[in-house]
């Protein structure tokens, strides 16, 4: 066989192997990433699971951006529905920044998921009007060319999900907005799966290897056992934390991270006391990950660990510094307390200490905290550019005229598709923090936007306006609900779900 023929043959083998490995085998491997560890891997993983079909129960599919993710939890909503005697499977398909444009392009895929009800919570961020103000600040909204915004939304740096989740569909629907370079990239992503998933392809192997063969101190999001006193998303405890002694804690021990701030008054004492009265004390003098080996307390015993000191991120240095006033303790390993790592943890929302920090605050204290955490000293907080941009954009809406273009147009196209496919759809203008809603609540723009959303109703599509439903303490920021906020909303969503799915 000549070199040319061998090359063609090998290329064909390459394409077949690529497809088999990345489209079939790869998705059979358990997913050990938490939701925030890898948004897009988790999104494609969940999308493939849902496309594969559903079980005997009817499926409620919640679609959307992080707004959806923070507003719903499968188990909380399922449990509430069960109390009403309704057995439904609730599934959430979301990633940060999922827009109506993304939803419209993936309409066929959503059809394959066979939802008996599609729930789509939306908020100001999902319509991405702020991007128009950012890209062409001098222009009024009615003068902005839609193509600029659509092209912007398709850039790999802004929307990496387009390449990994729906490259062919993007070519089909948005081809005129792509450069030749982008078209070639999307075509490659459609043909070659290893190219399509290259941004996260090997990451899950990395997580799996780390979970089994490392100390699990390289952090993404905490995904160990739930601590009754709660830990933060990044695994920081409070002054005390309770857990059960696992065999590995006696055999190999476990690790906790100690920061310099907690050692300011001297060595840190970690006192672990079991519910049977056994006690062990560890003196931690050094900064960094410290090894703790339980000796006296028995396996299976429930223990409460108490720290002699705490630290506050607002008084810390370097990457530990944060605009947060809560007391922190030590950091636990990413998979703390687990004999085997969680699988499909990305669909689970557990309460974290960021969620309960507002619970005991008065309204006035909360308002002060809101400004301190989200809007103070912005010149030195480049990470909060988006928060400032959202604020300015919302304030600017008073001077703008509503125009049903860009994401609004795609939302309309999407609802029309759902009507055609006879998929009942619930559009929700989701709750927003009153302290940010006030910036544009009375604007004509918001009134017209709401009227537009109402106009989409009919033929199985319903609209629910919950924009002012919750108090400020139910939000982590402008539009992401705390765990408590999510629990508060579950009955409200559930009642509407029951109403829409009642036969």
């Amino acid at each position, binding site marked *: 066989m000549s*070199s*040319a023929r061998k*090359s063609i043959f*090998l290329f064909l*083998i390459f394409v077949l192997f690529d497809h088999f490995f990345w489209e079939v085998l790869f998705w059979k491997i358990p997913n050990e990433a938490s939701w925030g560890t890898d948004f897009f891997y988790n999104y494609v993983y969940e999308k493939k699971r849902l496309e594969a079909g559903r079980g005997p129960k009817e499926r409620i599919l919640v679609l959307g951006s992080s707004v959806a993710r923070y507003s719903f939890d499968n188990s909380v909503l399922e449990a509430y529905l069960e109390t009403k005697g309704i057995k439904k499977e609730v599934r959430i398909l979301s990633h940060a920044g999922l827009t109506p444009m993304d939803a419209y392009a993936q309409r066929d895929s959503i059809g394959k998921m066979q939802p008996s009800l599609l729930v789509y919570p939306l908020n100001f961020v999902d319509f991405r009007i702020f991007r128009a103000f950012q890209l062409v600040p001098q222009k009024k909204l009615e003068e902005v060319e839609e193509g600029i915004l659509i092209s912007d939304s398709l850039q790999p740096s802004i929307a990496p999900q387009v390449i990994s989740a729906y490259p062919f569909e993007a070519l089909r629907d948005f081809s005129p907005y792509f450069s030749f370079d982008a078209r070639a990239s999307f075509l490659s992503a459609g043909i070659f799966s290893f190219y399509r998933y290259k941004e996260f392809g090997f990451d899950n192997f990395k997580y799996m290897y780390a979970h089994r063969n490392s100390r699990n101190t390289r952090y993404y999001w905490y995904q160990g056992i739930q601590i009754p006193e709660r830990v933060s998303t990044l695994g920081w405890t409070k002054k005390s934390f309770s857990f059960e002694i696992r065999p590995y804690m006696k055999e190999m021990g476990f690790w906790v991270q100690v920061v310099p701030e907690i050692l300011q008054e001297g060595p840190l004492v970690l006192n672990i006391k079991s519910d049977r009265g056994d006690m062990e004390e560890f003196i931690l003098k050094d900064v960094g990950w410290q090894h703790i080996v339980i000796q006296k307390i028995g396996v299976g015993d429930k223990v409460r660990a108490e720290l002699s000191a705490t630290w506050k991120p607002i008084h810390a240095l370097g990457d530990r510094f944060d605009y947060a006033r809560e007391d922190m303790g030590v950091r636990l390993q990413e998979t703390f307390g687990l004999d085997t790592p969680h699988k499909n943890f990305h669909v689970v929302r557990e309460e974290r200490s960021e969620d309960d920090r507002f619970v005991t605050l008065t309204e006035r204290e909360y308002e002060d905290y809101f400004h301190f955490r989200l809007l103070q000293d912005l010149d030195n907080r480049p990470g909060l550019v988006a928060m400032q941009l959202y604020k300015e954009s919302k304030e600017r809406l008073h001077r703008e005229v509503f125009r049903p273009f860009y994401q609004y147009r795609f939302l309309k196209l999407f609802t029309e598709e759902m009507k055609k496919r006879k998929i009942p759809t619930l559009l929700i203008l989701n709750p927003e923090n009153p302290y940010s809603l006030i910036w544009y609540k009375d604007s004509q723009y918001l009134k017209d936007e709401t009227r537009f959303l109402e106009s989409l109703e009919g033929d199985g599509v319903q609209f629910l306006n919950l924009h002012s439903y919750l108090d400020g303490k139910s939000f982590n920021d402008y539009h992401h609900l705390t765990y408590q906020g999510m629990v508060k909303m579950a009955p409200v969503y559930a009642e509407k779900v029951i109403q829409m799915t009642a036969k």
Partner: protein
Amino acid sequence: MNFTSPLYFYFIVSIFLFFRIASKIHLGQAFLSSILLIASYCFYAAWSPTYVLLIAVPTISDFWLGNQIYNSSGRKQKLYLLASICLNLGVLGFFKYANFLLGIENSLVSMLSISHKSLVLDLILPAGISFYTFQSMSYTIDIYRGLIRPELSIFQYALYLSFFPQLVAGPIVVARELLPKLKNLGSNLDIPYPKVFWLLLLGFTKKAIIADRIAPIIDIMYANPLSFSALDWVLCVLGYSVQIFCDFSGYTDIARGSALLFGIVLPENFNLPYLAESFSDFWRRWHITLSTWLRDYLYISLGGNRGTVVQISFNLMVTMLLGGLWHGASWNFVLWGGGHGILLSLERYFQNSRFSPLPVGGTGSFYQKTSFLTFLALRRMIVFSCITLLWILFRSKSIDVSLDVLSKLFSFQGGFILGYTDRNFLLGNIWVVFFSHLIGFFYADQISAYLEKELEWKLGIFFMVWAYIAVSLSRESRPFLYFVF
């Protein structure tokens, strides 16, 4: 159209298939040239359609002037050559140096305290202009020197100037070398596929995996020269040596591999440059086609190696200063070229000395007595260190930044520390380039001979796995550094 982008993959595959079918059914040399000419102009227009107009200027003018030079003699012939050189350098100078010269003029006027309005032209440097300008000049100069006859077809000449694999960043191939090859398109259909795959994959790996991943680390450090620790700066300057080598030689590898698909063998542009034994040896290994061009058309014209040590040093300094300026209009490039000129002059001065520290010619007694391995390694280290330090001038945006980097580098002080991953990545790639130089040093001939054979199954599978890993590890492609020169 970046060589490491998917668009280039589809472009090269389509042109190759079209070319191959046309060759198989014997559509003729003119047809094959037309395919490559159209492809080359489309390739260039992908950057900006106006570039096509710009390359048309030397194409038409030098094609006509070449004929005039050939058909005239004496003073008239010289005038035609002068017109060609002035036109080429004029266009290049306007786009590349106008703002630099205006900046000098503005500074001088300010120094004389004369009130004036600073003038800055809004110019974008067309990709590859320095490369095809030098190629075009080689054509008229070679006709003047009687080395070649003028090309009969303007389309053939247009293809010579715009041949897409080497259009935007070389290798700079002189007319006497490339024009005959382009006239024989389709005569050699026996393509060494293993060598093509090797060059394409090697180039892609160097550029997309090493250079493009190192670049953000280097960019951050050069943007904050005083912030990082001295130890990190050692890694950074070594890292930049790796980045620029992998970036530029990676481009050349892909260019050579692409050209081979059409039966065109482009010259090597790099030959294990960081194993150079001397500074003149470095320039025989680094950007070989530019050094050869500067030697043949500038250095020799200035007098070359004839004359006293002072005259030779003067010739070297002028050549290297202009070579530095060729890279860009900035004092940093002038200093970088000047630095190399000084090192070459010193080397030339010491060449015949009894105590030559860096002998090159092999005539010095000290050299003869000490050319054992250890001393050779030491010499290579000294040469590499000097070259690496000079890259600081090359990389910095201004002389102030270069001074900041040098002061921090030799301060032995702490500062911000690079992340663990970044440090390891830099260090790892320094070792990769070091070992690949060693492999090249010991096994280049064997590898080359193996790649000339038919594609074996095991080699095919090796390439397949390599491509798989390389593309998986690559990130969004960045423009090649030499596109701006």
